[in-house]
Every structure is written in C-alpha cells, then in structure tokens.
C-alpha cells in the first residue's frame, strides 16, 4: 500500500453514517474510494453540488457536471445543484460535518497553511479558508514530510495561514495526530512505523496517547 492509499483509507474511517463531507482537490479526493462499508456519506463540492457521485466512464463526461477541481463527476439520485453563494452558506452554516484538505504546514495550535509559498507559488485559497472555518471537523490529509524531508507538522507555521486554530485531525502515512489544547496527541502509527520515526519526522512535541495503536486499515 503506498502512502496516499494509507492516508485515504485511514481518513475514510473518520466518516460516520449520514455525514456531509467535502473533499479537497488532490489526495483528499481519493478518500471517496475508501468509505467503509455500511457507512453512507454525502459528498458536496463547493462549486455547487451535493450528492456527488463517482467519476463517469471515459466518453460519458457531462461538461456541465464537475467538482471543485474541474474534474468531471456525476450526481447521485437525491443530489442537488446550487449557486456559489448558497454553497458556502452550507459550508459556513454548520451543516458540513467534515472537510478533508491537503496541507503544507500544520502547527500545534491547529493552524493550517496550505494556499501559498510567498515568492514561489501562489495558487490562491479557493474555498479552503471557508471550508476550514465552516466545517465541524477539519481533517488534514497529507504526507508526513515535505519532498525534501523537512517536517510539515510544526510548533508554529511559517507560511501564510489558511485558517487559525481550525484543524482537528492530521492523517499521514506515518501517523494519526489529534490537535488538542495540550498540543499534538499521537493516536495511531502507520503500518510498521515506530514512535521514534514519527517524532523524528515531526517538528513539534508529541504527546503519545496511552491508547496508541497501529492504524487498522
């Protein structure tokens, strides 16, 4: 199982029956493939769709039906379309249970940076600032370290923030870490990963949960 699959599988386990879920662009989108059996969740996308279904077979794409990444999707029976303003009323209004987003940095206060690297890349925040503020639970799904091996889980974010103190849970290929008032709580380890390996790859103190276990994926 590669890192991305580990992460996507583990994030899927956070979904509860009846949840309304928004998946960010990129890796978070993969989570749609790993909703546990028996759990029914509804996916929405901020471009104006609730009840989003899987990617259509090649050749059957409808140019008017896409997700927030611009990719063709489908809609399930019982789904609905709406405009962008309404979409964010759903997001900010307290009915969105979970948002899963990628991250560049997360710190122990639950701050998130994922929308720009000054002077290098400035894609823009899109809907991420609204999603993090609005969703009841914010899950960051990302590889534990940056490509150069530097930690992304930090004492304090150095990049411009997406949201202040909104992150609830971080899921990486190495660990599941909860943001608590006391700091980062290490709850689960990736397959075959040790506590020391996680500590070495993390730029902040970790409280090791007494109930620490390996991910069951």
């Amino acid at each position, binding site marked *: 199982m590669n890192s991305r699959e580990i992460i996507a599988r583990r994030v899927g386990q956070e979904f509860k029956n009846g949840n309304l879920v928004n998946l960010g662009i990129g890796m978070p989108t993969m989570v749609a493939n790993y909703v546990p059996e028996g759990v029914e969740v509804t996916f929405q996308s*901020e471009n104006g769709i609730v009840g989003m279904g899987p990617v259509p077979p090649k050749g059957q794409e409808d140019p*008017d*039906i896409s997700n927030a990444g611009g990719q063709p999707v489908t809609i399930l029976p019982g789904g609905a*379309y709406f405009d962008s303003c309404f979409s964010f009323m759903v997001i900010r209004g307290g009915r969105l249970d979970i948002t899963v987003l990628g991250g560049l940095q997360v710190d122990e206060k639950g701050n998130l940076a994922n929308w720009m690297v000054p002077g290098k890349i400035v894609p*823009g*925040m899109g*809907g991420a600032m*609204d999603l993090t*503020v609005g969703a009841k639970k914010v899950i960051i799904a990302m590889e534990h370290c940056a490509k150069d091996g530097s930690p992304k889980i930090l004492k304090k974010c150095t990049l411009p923030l*997406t949201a202040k103190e909104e992150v609830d849970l971080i899921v990486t290929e190495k660990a599941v870490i909860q943001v608590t008032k006391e700091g980062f709580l290490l709850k689960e380890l990736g397959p075959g990963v040790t506590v020391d390996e996680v500590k070495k790859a993390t730029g902040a103190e970790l409280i090791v949960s007494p109930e620490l276990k390996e991910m069951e994926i």
Partner: protein
Amino acid sequence: MSKISDLKTVMDRIKDGNVIMIGGFLAVGTPEGFVDAIVEKGTRNLTVIGNDTGFLDKGIGKLVVSKQIKKAIVSHVGTNAETGRQMNAKEMDVELVPQGTLAERIRAGGGGLGGILTPTGVGTIAEEGKQKMIINNKEYVLELPIRAEIALIKAYKADKKGNLVFRATSRNFNPLMAMAADYVAVEAENIVEVGEIDPDEVMMPGVFVDAIVLAKQPAIDEVKGGA
C-alpha cells in the same frame, strides 16, 4: 420587449478599463463566446472579477494570455501558469479573495448591502487592512460589496424577457453576477419564447438581464441528456 441581442451590440458596450464580472468555475459555465469576442476586440486594462483565471486556453485564462487584464479579483489562479508569471512579474495585479467571501461580496453588491461579516479569513492575510468585529464572542471580518460595470454570464436556457435557467454545476457564480452589474449580458445555449419557462423554474428573473445572445455552438444535447 425582447432582450435578444447580438455579439456586436454587447461588445460595443465593453470599453478599455471596464470592470467586468465573468461567470464560471474553472471554465465550467463561462461564456466562452463573450470571452473570445473580447480577445478579438482587444479591449485593454480590464478589471476582471471571477472565481478563477481558468486555463491557458479556456475560460478567463484566455484574457490573461492575451494580456488584456490589468487586475483580477479571483479566489484561485493555480490552474493557469501565465497568471502566476504575470503576477510575479508585476504585469498584472491579482487580488485573491476566499471563494465564499467573493460570492458574498458579489451578492452584497447585487442586493444593495453595505457589507457582510464573515468568520472566513480571520487570523490570515485575508483580513489585512479590513475592519474586524466581535459579535457574540466570535471574530468576524467586514467584507465590502463588489459591483461591476458589466457582467458576462452563461445560461443554459433564456426566454426573450431574460428569465434564466442554469444547468448543473455551470450555475456557480452566474446568477450572483447577474445581480451585481449595471449591464448584464447572457450567453444562452437555448433561447425560448416568453412563457415557456415555468415561473417556479426560473433561477434568475429577467429583470436583471439586459441582453441575450445565442451561444455560437449549438447545445450538445446528446451529451447533456436533452433539454
């Protein structure tokens, strides 16, 4: 009083330096015919308000490539490398606005509101230079309305009075922008007679619409599952 118009009439309204809203989300629901016509006309120094700057060859991106935009007010530019290049080279000014805030600011502009208080962006760059207020122990940013001189929007269906129906996720910013501009032109895939759209089916009443132009390419109804 039919609002049916043509591309030339709409283009005659667009001048150098105009503030223009253009509907669409990553080119889904963007009036490509209007965008192409602006590229052809060569209007310059535009301020463009939209969700994003699309792609090099689709959506608002075409106006970036042709260097007709002085300033873009958008939520996302990551899908168009040329926007990033012009931004870094200071050839184009880009104001990045959180998507939900952009939608609310356009709505406020359309609905005569002086602004809205949103929790989005508190503690980030997005709050810089803006007034903050605490309501019921929670912090909010005051975001001001945006309006444009011209809105160019895309509809699936229009009647001759300008009543509009949008389709699927091509709705996005289109109805909001239709309310927030002095002159609203619609590129419609289908134009029908007055009375053919049920009053409960109308997503944007014609009172906001000034001109309707039939989209150049016929609606691909096989692909779209019929009108």
